[in-house]
């Protein structure tokens, strides 16, 4: 197995090669670490490597293979974990100084499920601080660069997770998406990224940003791998009261069902002013392919779309201001040891520990929740959220999935939007409405710009209907290969 071929390796190929004895999980893990050591210097996707734990797991898988046992679905698959999800004993920083050197005493449920399914967890992956950002430039440990164009951002906040899959530093990764943080980096880096329905995948062990919006999902190189990952991750977890016990699974089998007869909606609000013409053309080509495959295409309207970004930035920051109050220097992470009183210690610790964007969002959220402003901002935003959810529920009475762009532009240059928070927030214009409504969504590669930058198309599905969304994504993927 050459280092170059790691870039295209899929979950199925790994599992089959390990089962047939053509390679070992240990050799694969070592090859990935070698590639990371050689090339991640310029990408900056990994923040910590969990080598000991990975090699123990790989050895376990290799012994199973030697004994000829049936291998679990992710046997020997090298996977990276976004640094907002915790792994026992492995540093978890959330890309923040406030958690520098913190080693959590437990595993996130998603981490535990991947490992139980045979995955080899290589380490923790860079992101925007506390998952707040759309470019991965907010990491306290330096930005991540886009492997497809090193002067460009990989997107955010799960920029490192997308970049690692694109660069061959992991076969799959976990990311999180609060307002677009899986779909947008997937589009920028040319990989598949899935936002499962809210409640589909446990959030236990996820360092919370905005609890009513945060979701955990996979990055992979193709749709089938995404379905395999989701099968492992999905399901009720008693440790997350918002996780659902609705039936899940069989996502891989669902891919075999043809898309003929499915009704595909095109929300007109997602194709307006500001959409890059090359992205528009690529998304329209994907729609043509679905039409050719027997889908019915029809226009739909999600009339409140333009209010999604402002509503999101009230709700997400309000929840963040509450969630991030736990970083106070008392129980874990950074503490200012000079402070003489408790309240002084809180403030000095938080001032030293948080970056500018995190402070900005805490301030905005605190303001929106403070006496006299609660009704005008927080309650208002929650009411608009209800209208946005209604838009989707009504559209899904008429159609089975929605097709839209993921982002208005392809990957932008580092530093291009860092001075203007609103410009950066508008990156999320096509992604936040689905986040607020709780429906499932994903980004699938659908072409390149004239500058060879990847383009993604967004497939949105009903609550808990990931199976149909994945089928449609697969049809788009197949049309690209043809």
């Amino acid at each position, binding site marked *: 197995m050459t280092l170059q071929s790691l870039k295209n390796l899929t979950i199925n190929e790994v599992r089959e090669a390990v089962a047939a004895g053509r390679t070992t999980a240990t050799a694969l893990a070592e090859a990935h670490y070698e590639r990371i050591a050689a090339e991640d210097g310029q990408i900056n996707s990994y923040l910590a490597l969990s080598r000991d734990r990975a090699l123990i797991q790989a050895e376990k898988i290799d012994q199973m293979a030697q004994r000829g046992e049936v291998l679990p679905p992710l046997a020997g698959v090298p996977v990276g974990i976004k640094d907002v999800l915790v792994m026992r004993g492995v540093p978890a920083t959330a890309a923040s100084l406030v958690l520098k050197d913190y080693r959590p*005493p437990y595993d996130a449920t998603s981490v535990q499920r991947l490992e139980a399914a045979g995955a080899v967890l290589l380490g923790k992956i860079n992101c925007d601080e506390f998952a707040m950002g759309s470019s991965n430039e907010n990491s306290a440990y330096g930005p991540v660069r886009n492997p497809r164009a090193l002067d460009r951002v990989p997107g955010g906040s799960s920029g490192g997770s997308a970049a690692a899959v694109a660069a061959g530093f992991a076969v799959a990764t976990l990311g999180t998406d609060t307002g677009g943080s899986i779909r947008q980096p997937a589009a920028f880096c040319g990989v598949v990224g899935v936002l499962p329905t809210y409640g589909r995948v446990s959030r236990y062990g996820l360092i919370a940003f905005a609890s009513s919006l945060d979701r955990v999902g996979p990055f992979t190189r193709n749709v089938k791998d995404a379905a395999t990952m989701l099968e492992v991750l999905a399901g009720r977890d008693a440790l997350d009261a918002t996780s*659902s016990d609705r039936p899940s699974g069989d996502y891989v089998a669902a891919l075999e069902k043809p898309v003929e007869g499915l009704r595909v909606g095109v929300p007109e609000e997602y194709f307006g002013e500001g959409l890059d013409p090359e992205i528009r053309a690529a998304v329209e080509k994907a729609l043509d392919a679905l039409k050719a495959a027997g889908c019915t295409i029809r226009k739909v309207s999600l009339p409140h779309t333009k209010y999604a970004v402002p509503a999101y930035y009230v709700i997400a920051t309000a929840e963040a201001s509450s969630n991030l109050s736990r970083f106070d220097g008392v129980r874990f992470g950074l503490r200012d040891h000079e402070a003489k009183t*408790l309240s002084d210690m809180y403030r000095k610790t938080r*001032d030293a520990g948080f970056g500018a964007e995190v*402070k900005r969002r805490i301030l905005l959220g605190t303001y929106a929740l403070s006496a006299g402003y609660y009704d005008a901002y927080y309650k208002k*935003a929650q*009411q*608009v959220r209800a209208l946005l*959810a209604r838009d989707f529920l009504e559209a899904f009475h008429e159609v089975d999935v929605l097709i839209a762009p993921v982002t208005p532009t392809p990957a932008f240059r580092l530093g291009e939007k860092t001075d203007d928070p609103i410009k950066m927030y508008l990156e999320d214009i096509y992604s936040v409405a689905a986040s607020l409504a709780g429906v499932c969504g994903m980004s699938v590669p659908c072409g390149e710009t004239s500058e060879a930058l990847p383009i993604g198309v967004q497939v949105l599905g009903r609550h808990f209907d990931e199976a149909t969304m994945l089928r449609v994504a697969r049809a788009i993927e197949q049309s690209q290969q043809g």
Partner: protein
Amino acid sequence: MSGQSEVSIEEVRRVAELANLELTAEEEPRMQRDLNAILGYIEQLSELDTSSVAPMAQVGEVLEDRVVSPHGETLRLDIVQPSLDRADVMASAPETDGRFFKVPKVIER
């Protein structure tokens, strides 16, 4: 929200205090500028009449086939289960005597 006046530097300080954040002299005007820009942008929510819309706090509230069981759909059974080991948790604490978290003086005398 409509006709909201600009956030003053004093208000920025007050909100920072509520949030237990200490802003430097350089950070204050920058945060004031950004807060005003973002709040100005958020202002457009007031275009919508939401007087008859119930606020949505959680996705589960809007699901059309939602089942409400008498026990609460998602609550686990109230059974005692082991929690994290104290020594494991205390190992991450900035200052501890092994049993408790230690903090600086709480009350001034």
